Each structure stands twice: as C-alpha cells, then as structure tokens.
C-alpha cells in the first residue's frame, strides 16, 4: 500500500530533479554591460531558436563590479564580456579559463592584430575572443553647437560651465586628463599636469555619469552640451534613441578600447558559452545590431566589410588618420589604479 506511493514519489522527485538539472545545463549565463548587444531581445530569441540554449543576462556598471561578481559567484556565469585591458587581471585571478578557438567558426575572420593581441593571449592560449572595439571620445549635444568642435579644449570653455559631463571612473578620468595634457595614456609622466587639467575641469561639470542611460537622459532633458562618451553608445543614442548626439574624435586624440568575450573558470556550460560567443562575433548579428540599435566597430573584418561604404564605423573609425590619433588602453597595475583612484577621490572631495 505504502510502497508504490513511495516509489511514485521518489520517481517524481527524480524526474523533477533531473528536469531541473537539465534545464540548468541548457542555460547560458551572460555577464555584460546593460544594453550592450548581448541582451538585445531579438538577438537572444534568434540565438535561442538556433541553438536551443536559454540566455540569462546579468549586468555590471563598472569593470571592477564585473570582477567582483566573478569572484563572489564562481560557477554562476558562462560568458563574460571583459575589456581587454582587464583580461590580464582576470586571468591572473584565475577567474577565466582558456578558450578552444577552433570551436568558434567565426574566429578566423577576426582581424589578426586584435585576435593576436598580447592582452588576450597568454602562454599560447586564447583567454579572450575580440568582439568590438571603440573609443572613449567626446560627444556633443547637437542643439548646443552650430558646428561640431574639433578640440578637447571645448570642455574647458566657460560657455559650457555647468553643462559638461564626465564618467565617474578614476582610470577613464586620468587617461582623459593625459590626452588633454598631450601625454601617452599608458605611460603618464607628468601626473601634476593631469591633476591640474582635471582640477580646472571640475567647476565645469554638471554631474558624473555611470551608465549610458544617465548620459542619454541628460541630453534628452537638454541639461548638458558636451562630455566624454563611448563611440558605440553615442551611435546608439543617435540611431536607437533618436537623440541629438554626435561623436567627436578630438584632434588631441582619444582612448581606444577592445572588448572581448571570455569564459569564466568553473562555467557549467562551456559548449553553450562557445556557441554564444560565436554568435556574437557573427557578421549577421553585428550588422543587425549596428543598423537597428547602434554599436561600436566589430573586430570581425567580414562584419565591417558588410557595412555601407559611408557608415561611421567603416569610414571614420577605419580612417588611417583617425587610427594615428587614437591610443589603445594597456593593462593597468593595481598600484597605478590605486594612485588614479586617490587622485580622483581627492578631486571630487575638493569640489566641496
């Protein structure tokens, strides 16, 4: 009397548990910036339909937060988007694992200088698959300018007092100060010049931004004229949100970054992660992303070639003149980071 019931109960439990386990194995947990390609609903639906995996997105607001999430949730994520300058740190902290690039059919089309970047390859192993690259440059509110400025000095113009915005990020602020004072962002010799530049910028600033949404809202409510912004975000603000935003690559230069996908150590679904990364670097996804939403420049040469001749990401970003002006971010040591943070905090406290 009791036995069959018990058996039935046990069977039901076993089925339930295995169903749960199966479901968990089919999920691909992705960690990325919010609104940055990987969470586009059409892309997620397309990927899920093609592969049968289910995408679960999680987000971060700073590279440090991303590293924190990886450290405090081992085994939770299967794919993580890491700025190449942080790849070294993530690998050294044993947060990511080597990727078998031969399993990614689109890997061969990635520009060789990006794919072979020493920032993403360690001991002959691939730790990051280049996805997109772009600039931290200056974006303007078109309503405030008759013609776009060419110099970074525009941000110090008293005409824009209280209408300038920069990101609340020590490294970005210091590197921006380095460009404004004509220095190499990866080898800042004169820290005092950077400090002086940023100190004189502080009274101009309205507030600090931390996410794309902050920036776009400030423009939508016409509260700012000019500020530092990412090239892909500026493109998105214009294309997707129809805001009067345009990107300026100042004559003094701009900071360039390379974003890449990695697989966290302890991932429970490496096959799913590989499929997702391969989908993300596919020209088909990129073209749809850049035309529908707006995006930075793909690291996949085939993807860029499919863009129209006059597309910003092909014409301007591919321009050799621009290439000469930009400086790619190199990894930063913890000491440098702490020094930058101390400087940034001091600047923020001194405005009081």
């Amino acid at each position, binding site marked *: 009397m009791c036995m069959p019931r018990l058996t039935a109960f046990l069977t039901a439990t076993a089925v339930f548990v295995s169903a749960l386990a199966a479901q968990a194995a089919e999920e691909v947990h992705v960690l990325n910036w919010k609104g940055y390609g990987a969470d586009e609903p059409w892309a997620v639906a397309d990927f899920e339909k093609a592969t049968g995996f289910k995408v679960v997105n999680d987000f971060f607001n700073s590279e*440090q937060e991303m590293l924190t999430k990886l450290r405090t949730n081992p085994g939770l994520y299967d794919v993580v988007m890491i700025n190449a300058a942080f790849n070294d740190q993530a690998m050294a902290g044993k947060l990511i694992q080597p990727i078998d690039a031969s399993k990614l059919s689109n890997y061969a089309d990635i520009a060789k200088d990006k794919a072979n970047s020493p920032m993403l390859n360690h001991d002959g192993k691939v730790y990051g698959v280049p996805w997109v690259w772009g600039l931290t440059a200056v974006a303007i509110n078109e309503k405030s300018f008759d013609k776009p400025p060419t110099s970074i000095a525009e941000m110090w113009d008293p005409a824009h007092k209280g209408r300038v915005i920069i990101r609340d990020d020590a490294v970005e602020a210091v590197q921006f100060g380095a460009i404004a004072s004509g220095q190499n962002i990866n080898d800042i010799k004169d820290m005092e010049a950077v400090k002086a530049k940023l100190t004189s910028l502080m009274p101009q600033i309205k507030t600090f931004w931390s996410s794309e949404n902050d920036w776009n809202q400030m423009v939508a409510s016409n*509260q700012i004229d000019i500020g530092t912004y990412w090239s892909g975000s500026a493109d998105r603000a214009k294309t997707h949100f129809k805001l009067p935003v345009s990107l300026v690559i100042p004559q003094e230069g701009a900071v360039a970054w390379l974003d890449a996908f990695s697989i966290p150590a302890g991932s429970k679904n490496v096959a799913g992660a590989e499929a997702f990364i391969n989908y993300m670097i596919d020209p088909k996804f990129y073209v749809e992303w850049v035309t529908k939403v707006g995006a930075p420049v793909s690291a996949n040469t085939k993807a860029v070639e499919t863009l129209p001749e006059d597309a910003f990401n092909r014409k301007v970003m591919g321009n050799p003149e621009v290439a000469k002006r930009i400086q790619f971010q190199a990894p930063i040591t913890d000491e440098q980071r702490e020094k930058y943070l101390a400087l940034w905090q001091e600047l923020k406290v001194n405005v009081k």
Partner: protein
Amino acid sequence: MADQLATGSRRGLKPALPLLLPAYLWLTVAIFLPLSAMVFFSFMTDLPLAEKEWAFTLGNYTAFFSQGLYLTLLLASLRLGLEVTLWCVVIGYPAAYVLAKVLKGRSREAIFLLIILPFWSNGLVRIFSWAMVLREGGILDTTLNAVLPFKINIDLMYSYPAVIIGLVHSYVPYMVLTCYLTLQAIDDSLIEAGRSLGASRFQVLKRVIIPLSMPGLIAGAALIFVPVVGSFMEPRILGGRTGTFYGTIIEDQFVAVFNWPLGAALSFILLAVVLIILALAAPVLRRAG
C-alpha cells in the same frame, strides 16, 4: 494586570525562550555573522578569494588617519546628518503635534496615511521623482515660471540642497511617528492644568509638552541621524559633482575598486564615531528630558 506581568517576569527566561528564539536566531544569522566577517575583513590586506595571498594588517584603519580626505568626508557627512535631522524636527514635530492633539477621528487617519504613504514606495523611485521635480526645466521650475509674472531659474538638481531635500523627505516620517507616539501619551489635563495656572501657550510648550515628548524626539533623531551619515544613494543621484560623501566613498570601495577590507574598516570607523556621538549626547539629552 501589573500583577500578572510581575509574576510573568519572575518565572524567568525559560518560558520566554520559544518566543525569543526566532528573533535571536535571525539576528545571529543575518546580522551578527556577516558583521563579524566584516570585522575580520577589515584587518586583512586582501580578500581570501581565488587563492590570493593575504595577511593581517592595521593598514586599513591607519589609511583613514593618513589621508585627510576621509576625515574631511566624515565631517561633511556628520554635518549632513545634523542638518537633515534638524530639518526633520522642524518639519516633523509640528506635524506630529497636530496629529496627536488637534486632529481627531477620520481626518487624523487621513493625514496619518499621507505621512506613511511615502514609506510604501521604493526609495529609489522617490529619489528619481525628486530628480524630475528639481532639475532645470523640471516640474518645479516649469510650474513656478507658469504662475509667477517674472522669470526665475530654478535648478536645484545636483547640489547640496537637493541632497538635503531628498534625505529629509525620506526620513521625516520617522520623526513624525516617534513624536506622535510620545505626544499622544501626554495627558491633556496636564496641558489644561498648566494653562489654568497662568502659563502662556509658549510656556506650556516649553515646560510641559517638549520635556514630556523628549523621548520621542531623541528616538526620532537617532533613527534619522545614523542612516543619514552613512547614506550614499541619495547623495550620488541628487548631489552630482558635490555628491561625494563618506557613504559614497565606502560604496566605491565595495563596488568600484573591490577593496572590501578598506571599505569595511571605513564602515567600522563610521560606526565607532556614531556610537561615540550618541554616547556623548545621551546624558545631555537625558538631562534636557
């Protein structure tokens, strides 16, 4: 009734144990353990994650004293706490008095509801609503310019006053509630006695009402002062470039630079400072009461 209570307490702790256990279990698991872990972290050079090397150090605490920046910020936060508490008293106490002594029945319930209502909404939503009201071209600016014959420019957003406004709004219900409870408990006949013995309204307020409601005022002030000193969300969103406070720096340590040990040390220094202030203030306030 008093007899029953007395015998109840004489029977000792044992019968009360089943009633106390859930609360203490919860406090142990949810507060005591994480807090002890944080104390531990605050003496470490690095977190013991991903096989990182770490050692014990006092460096996180000495960092507070070696850099003037933290002290400046702590003082700024304490000032913020005092100002917000003061405004809460100025706004909350009269409201509590009206609720307790003037209004009766239905109207009291209605006003009471209006005061508690903000509590039921999410804190972040409240702060973002203020952002819409306070900014240039926002609700306040547009409304005033539509009503007034001359042009004024109101842009309070991203300033110190905006932080004060946001925090006062968030915390004033605490003051109203604590003061209401003590004011309501004051026997009306005491006030009438004072009046009939020739005291002016002001004298009654000063000699009878305020002293008797002092416990509520103190409780409200402590409830407000402590979280405001450590607040980080409101200053960050409403303060703009002037929104750097002690709480935001602690948040940066945890979220932005992943220096939990320093963040924990800074938090415990704040805790110590707040406890010292409350300890110093207690006898003064008790005498005033």
